[in-house]
């Protein structure tokens, strides 16, 4: 993957940093630490640096490998709609669109459901229901995505094709979102599968956030004569930004999901607002075409897609982390 020289360089830099950290450390506090602790701390510090350097190494390698495509297509790579491996002409817009559209749709379906479940779990359910139910919700996250894909193909898609899509076309056919023949395979199927897959992460984080709201607030609301619903509203206001963070984490998961989406989305690189039409995502084009990509520019174009996906997920996740941190900080300081 990467040449040895580079990795050595990075290793050197890492060691220098490590030495610096160690010396800094020893100057200050060596007297009151026993050597075992010192070694242990430095080992863990080294591991942390390994993780960090892995991320940078990946970014560096992907950028390097996608340079031919970046140079050849420039910005047209992001705005181009044609993806033609025969003529070596690549534009990634349909994949970027497909990734964002399917993920946002999934969020639209999943968010009310997840927040509803989270409210029930944290505010309404008695303990004996709450615990097994939370466990079940979290277990949804442990199901391998290929199983979701198979469930999609054999159970969900026939149902979509025969029941849901004809119904939607009949009642809401005037909207641009419900046009075209009902294949079953397509954007709607992908969005539904994704919404099930991101439900556990949004639910469990939202529930934890709501539980973090001090009980005194609820008690105060009740003492003032608030109803159950009014109290929940107060809790929701307090945990708004936390739920937003959870949502963004869910979005990050949806953006990166590959296997289940590939199996149900129909894999067609078109840009269409209709939920019935097949689409394609960045992750699924990588899974589909990378193994057999032969020409240099083809591989490079695929790696550029990977780089774009990497950037999108990093941005989403950083925003999510920032939001979650800010809200937990607020409550920690509030408690003191």
């Amino acid at each position, binding site marked *: 993957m990467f040449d040895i020289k580079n990795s050595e360089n990075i290793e050197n830099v890492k060691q220098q940093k490590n030495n610096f950290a160690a010396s800094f450390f020893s100057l200050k506090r060596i007297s009151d630490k026993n050597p075992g602790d010192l070694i242990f701390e430095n080992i863990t510090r080294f591991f942390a640096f390994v993780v960090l350097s892995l991320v940078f190494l990946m970014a560096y390698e992907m950028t390097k490998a996608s340079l031919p495509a970046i140079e050849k297509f420039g910005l047209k790579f992001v705005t181009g709609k044609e993806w033609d491996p025969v003529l070596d002409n690549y534009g990634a817009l349909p994949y970027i669109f497909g990734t964002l559209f399917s993920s946002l749709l999934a969020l639209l379906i999943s968010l009310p459901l997840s927040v509803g479940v989270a409210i029930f779990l944290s505010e309404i359910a008695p303990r004996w229901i709450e615990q097994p139910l939370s466990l079940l919700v979290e277990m949804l996250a442990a199901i391998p995505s290929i199983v979701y894909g198979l469930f999609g193909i054999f159970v969900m898609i026939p149902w979509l094709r025969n029941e849901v899509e004809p119904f939607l076309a009949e009642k809401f056919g005037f909207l641009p979102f419900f046009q075209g023949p009902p*294949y079953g395979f397509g954007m709607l199927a992908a969005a539904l599968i994704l919404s099930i897959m991101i439900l556990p992460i949004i639910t469990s984080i939202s529930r934890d956030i709501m539980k973090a709201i001090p009980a005194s607030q609820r008690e105060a609301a009740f003492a003032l004569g608030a109803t159950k619903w009014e109290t929940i509203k107060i809790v929701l206001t307090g945990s708004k930004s936390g739920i937003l963070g959870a949502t963004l984490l869910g979005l990050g998961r949806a953006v990166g999901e590959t296997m289940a989406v590939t199996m149900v989305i129909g894999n067609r690189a078109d840009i269409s607002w209709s939920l019935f039409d097949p689409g394609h995502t960045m992750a699924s084009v990588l899974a589909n075409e990378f193994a057999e990509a032969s020409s240099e520019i083809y591989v490079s174009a695929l790696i550029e897609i990977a780089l774009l996906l990497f950037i999108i997920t990093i941005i989403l996740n950083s925003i999510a982390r920032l939001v979650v941190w800010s809200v937990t900080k607020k409550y920690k300081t509030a408690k003191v």
Partner: protein
Amino acid sequence: MKNRIMLFVISIIGLMLISCTSKEQKNPEAQLKLNGAGATFPYVIYSKWFDVYHNQAGVEFNYQSIGSGGGVKQVIEGTVDFGASDAPMSEEEMKAVMDKQETEILHIPTIMGAVVVTYNMKQVGKGLKLTPEIISDIFLGKVTKWNDSKITAVNSGKKLPNEPIIVTHRSDGSGTTNIFTDYLSKVSNEWKDKVGTGKSVNWPVGLGGKGNEGVAGLVKQTEGSIGYVELAYAVQNKLDYALLKNKAGNFIEPTFESVSAAAEGAINNMPADLRVSLTNTDGKDSYPISGFTWLLVYKNMKDRQKMDALKTFLKWALTDGESYAKDLYYAPLPKEVVKLCQKKVDLITLKK
């Protein structure tokens, strides 16, 4: 407790020693190992060959089915002793081998495969007939209904519904797509200009499925759909497939015999390097969407032991090995082609 751990460690070391010595006793040449990588399509028969041959001759093979593209890459980089591919290497790729490994590459056909056009229409059942023109028009999106006059003209006995044709194709890069699009480019100029030949192409219409199983899943799930899969996959899964009109004008069912006949039909025009496409070949019984799969070997090898082992293996595979083909749903090479391949194997020499 400590004793128990010691016992465990000792027993493991003992087991390792036993396994080492027993292997050495079994055959002294066990160190000789040939590494290969490439196509997934022939993986089943290759692993059968490697297994049987290992027991006979004691030469070990390590074959990784990473895909034809990957196989070619590894051959160029020289990280394997041989490669395998469903599509012949391009001139550029062969030049890259020349530059990096300083040797020519020989393409040795091993077995044959075919691509069948599969469809899902309960009313029609088995035995739909299709002409090259109809297939290319369907995949170009020009024929969109099952009762199009072009289709009804060649299927006089069948009742074709007034339903839309739902086109499906492979979404992953594959040798199957390569053979299929090669065929379409040969029979339709419009296809050649608009789409072309490749392991992945820019499809004018249709839904994509990943792998043979993905396309078969789409077709099985969708009434009125049409797609293409490997012959072996269609036979094993009992899919309905179409009879295709070949160059001689006969409607041919895809069978191992009609696929082998495609190679026989091409024997007179076979180029010396055997990098030949077998789509739309001559011969009255030839199935038109057939193809070879190749082993890619270096003409000049560095290691004498490995060279000898590979040569004897190839000769064995081309003769005795071919008999395993039909049981594993592959079409064997016709005898004339085997002779040409054996001559190729003789060309492998030691690098000076």
